[in-house]
């Protein structure tokens, strides 16, 4: 597929061993990308099956036990195997050193180790699925998770191992950003993708250990009955929720900050315009990362925690809304007087702004104490976090893949098919999830296998049916993307070094880059978004 005449990181060295033992961040990024996309396909399969089951009221083709396992697997796979590693481990690994003008990450061996730890974690999770899976929901709430008959120990252990992969990556990125910047590259000359990834890495390192502790306690609870979450032994199930969300809320920012990071870069490059409010976007990433540690209790307003805690958590939650809002306004203003190319990556970046705005605004409903009472644990929440996680992170991830694809593989994909698939994704996504807001505020609880026999069954059925139909369209969109991206590897046009006219280091080297990233010593000569001073041919 690649001419042997060109020597780049993909073609040299050759052989399976040269990949399995590679220390090259670019190859490790690709190895992550492959596994992460497989995990996404698996999670997507479960999602589609659930949607088809919910197409009508009553049981269609999944019994309740299978349904409960499937929604657990959908959540667990999407969160732990796909979305948390997605942008940092795949695109971050590939882009971060290139963007810094570095030859590799700070600890290449640790980087490879993190990939193997991910493989190990995924293998344990697969074992758990093969042995009968779990039906606890991805949140593993006790005491149900200590009583349920499923493979809870192996599943949580898999997630526990995956956490280390995440910690290793985060640690690596922090040191890399501190120590490996090219001469002349100050903190305020970092591309915003790097700022976002850096803020994410800080959360990965600080929050993930708490998840590890929590899951370990759960395993001990099941295996030897220590009773820390068991009310019958004087434990407290609400304590599990505190532990769990102390990680899992910051984890929400592990998921969304890299998405925001990609979008900041995409908007600037494809509108060929200096980013508006660079420092505020950078600081807001850090502010979100820090405040993100103090809001876990907003998942528990009606869990039985004290009303005073609920009040404090609600208050801090609203404060995260401010930096988030500022980011959105900055992106939109960046478009003003730009030179905007509406190619596939930019379409995803613009879709991100619109979908993430919906995700953010509906978060205001849930953050308001009184309103959360009615909306909590309904489809309103499901819609809200899918707008943030999928409309936000996944859309940004798709944008990022399309943006850096020419750099990663040296090939262009079909722009026409890219746009067609985008329409499927955008329309399908909104059809699937927008009506779930109404479904939820009308009272439909989440995690319900069957909604027949209620006074509102007819109403629920209309929304559910529409949603399932949208999911099919979404599925077609992903199928199209898979086909044209794979096809581009074989017959795609050769990509130029700088197809989008970017100004950051990765666009200055060849596509694909050589193993050592640059054939020269990169020195910073201008800011990452100086589209007012530098033309792309002069970088």
């Amino acid at each position, binding site marked *: 597929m690649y001419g042997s005449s060109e020597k780049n990181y993909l073609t040299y060295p050759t052989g399976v061993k040269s990949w399995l033992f590679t220390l090259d961040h670019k190859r490790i990024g690709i190895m992550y990308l492959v596994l992460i996309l497989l995990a996404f396909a698996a999670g997507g399969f479960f999602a589609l099956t659930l949607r088809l089951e919910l197409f009508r009221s009553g049981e269609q083709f999944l019994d309740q036990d299978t349904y409960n396992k499937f929604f657990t697997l959908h959540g667990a796979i999407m969160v732990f195997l796909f979305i948390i590693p997605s942008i940092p481990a795949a695109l971050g690994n590939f882009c971060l050193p290139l963007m810094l003008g570095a030859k590799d990450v700070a600890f290449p061996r640790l980087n490879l180790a993190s990939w193997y730890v991910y493989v190990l974690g995924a293998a344990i999770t697969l074992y758990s699925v093969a042995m009968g899976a779990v*039906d606890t929901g991805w949140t593993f*709430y006790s005491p149900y998770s200590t009583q349920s008959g499923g493979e809870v120990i192996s599943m949580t252990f898999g997630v526990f191992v995956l956490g280390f992969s995440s910690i290793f990556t985060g640690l690596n990125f922090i040191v890399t950003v501190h120590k490996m910047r090219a001469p002349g590259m100050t903190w305020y000359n970092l591309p915003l993708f790097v700022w976002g990834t850096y803020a994410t890495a800080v959360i990965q390192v600080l929050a993930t250990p708490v998840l590890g502790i929590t899951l370990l306690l759960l395993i001990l609870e099941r295996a030897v009955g220590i009773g820390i979450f068991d009310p019958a032994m004087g434990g407290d199930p609400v304590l599990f929720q505190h532990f769990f969300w102390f990680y899992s809320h910051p984890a929400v920012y592990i998921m969304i900050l890299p998405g925001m990071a990609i979008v900041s870069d995409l908007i600037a490059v494809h509108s060929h315009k*200096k980013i508006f409010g660079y420092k505020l976007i950078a600081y807001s990433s850090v502010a979100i990362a820090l405040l993100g540690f103090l809001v876990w209790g907003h998942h528990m307003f009606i869990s039985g925690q004290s009303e005073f805690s609920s009040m404090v958590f609600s208050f801090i939650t609203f404060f995260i809304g401010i930096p988030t809002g500022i980011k959105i306004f900055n992106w939109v203003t960046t478009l003003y007087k730009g030179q905007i190319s509406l190619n596939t990556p930019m379409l995803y970046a613009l879709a991100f702004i619109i979908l993430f705005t919906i995700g953010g*605004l509906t978060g205001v409903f849930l953050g*308001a104490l009184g309103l959360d*009472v009615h909306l909590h644990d309904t489809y309103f929440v499901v819609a809200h976090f899918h707008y943030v996680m999928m409309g936000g992170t996944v859309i940004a991830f798709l944008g990022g893949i399309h943006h850096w694809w020419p750099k990663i593989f040296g090939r262009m994909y079909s722009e026409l098919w890219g746009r067609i698939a985008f329409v499927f994704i955008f329309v399908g996504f909104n059809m699937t999830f927008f009506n779930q807001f109404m479904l939820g505020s009308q009272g439909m*609880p989440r995690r*319900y296998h069957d909604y027949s026999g209620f006074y509102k069954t007819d109403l629920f059925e209309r929304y559910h049916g529409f949603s399932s139909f949208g999911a099919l369209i979404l599925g077609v969109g992903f199928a199209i993307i898979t086909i044209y991206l794979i096809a581009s590897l074989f017959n795609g046009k050769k990509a130029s070094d700088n197809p989008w006219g970017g100004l950051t280091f990765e666009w200055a080297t060849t596509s694909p880059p050589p193993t050592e990233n640059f054939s020269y010593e990169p020195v910073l000569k201008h800011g990452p978004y100086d589209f007012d001073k530098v033309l792309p041919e002069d970088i």
Partner: protein
Amino acid sequence: MQGQGTFNLPPAASTIAPAYDSLFYFIYWLSVFFFVVITVATIAFVIKYRRKKGEAFKLTTGFCHNTPLELVWSVIPTLLIFVIFIWGFQMFMRYWVIPGNAMEVRVTAQQWNWNFKYPEGASREILVVPKGRPVKLLMQSVDVLHSLFIPDFRVKMDIVPNRYTSLWFQADQEGEYDLYCTEYCGQKHSRMTTRVSVRSESEYRKWLEENSVTPTGDVLYKRYGCNTCHSLDGGTGNGPTFKNLFGSTEKMSDGTMVEVDDNYLRESILDPKAKIVDGFEPVMPTFKNTLSADELDSLIDFIKTQAE
């Protein structure tokens, strides 16, 4: 179901619901406003500043900072957020401060059914309340987490084992409403639903009197959800069928043989994990705190009558 809901919200059938809906629609219209501003600006800029086909990259403006603009979009949302926080907090306090004159109904949640005990002693699987009187639900769970949700009343509260949680409402429209469990609780979570019936004071009184007598076993069999696992026709479920059960000899999971008599049934209902019939999982919750002595008798009598 009485009354009409709106596009976003179900009918408002409790005293707190109209206040809830005002805050909901306040945020709703604010959101619509911001969404329209952001979307329209995005689309307008994209159209206006779109790069022509084949046009070479040129130097664009260095416009990247504007203090008044940035102050406007930081300060205004901050102020709005304060308003929403305080409003939301006030709503929350209305939920959490329970009127002193509220009538108390005890709720027991267990996988996967509800039980409501009324002050006058009646005990049923449905919630019947008088219109226009504040009602406090004092709730406990005998197994895992549950959550009680009545959408048309806009109330919800988690139910946690080993402690009481409570909520209150005052229904102000007669009618029948859905009640859901909204904290995932295992296999039949989506079937752990029941009805709320709001009646006039006199209807409510009448209903209470009718229900203060211990009901017969066949009623209890359904009320306490025995039917979800134990069939009457010999079919297999999560538990053994009741058909021809009494007087038979069953093999236990530890290999011993046990004759099904009154005491065995009593033990199996109150301490289900003591003896497990071979081939079944120990999944049955205890009914120790749920059944009264009379109810237990009725239920055992009912199981007896299932033997030919």
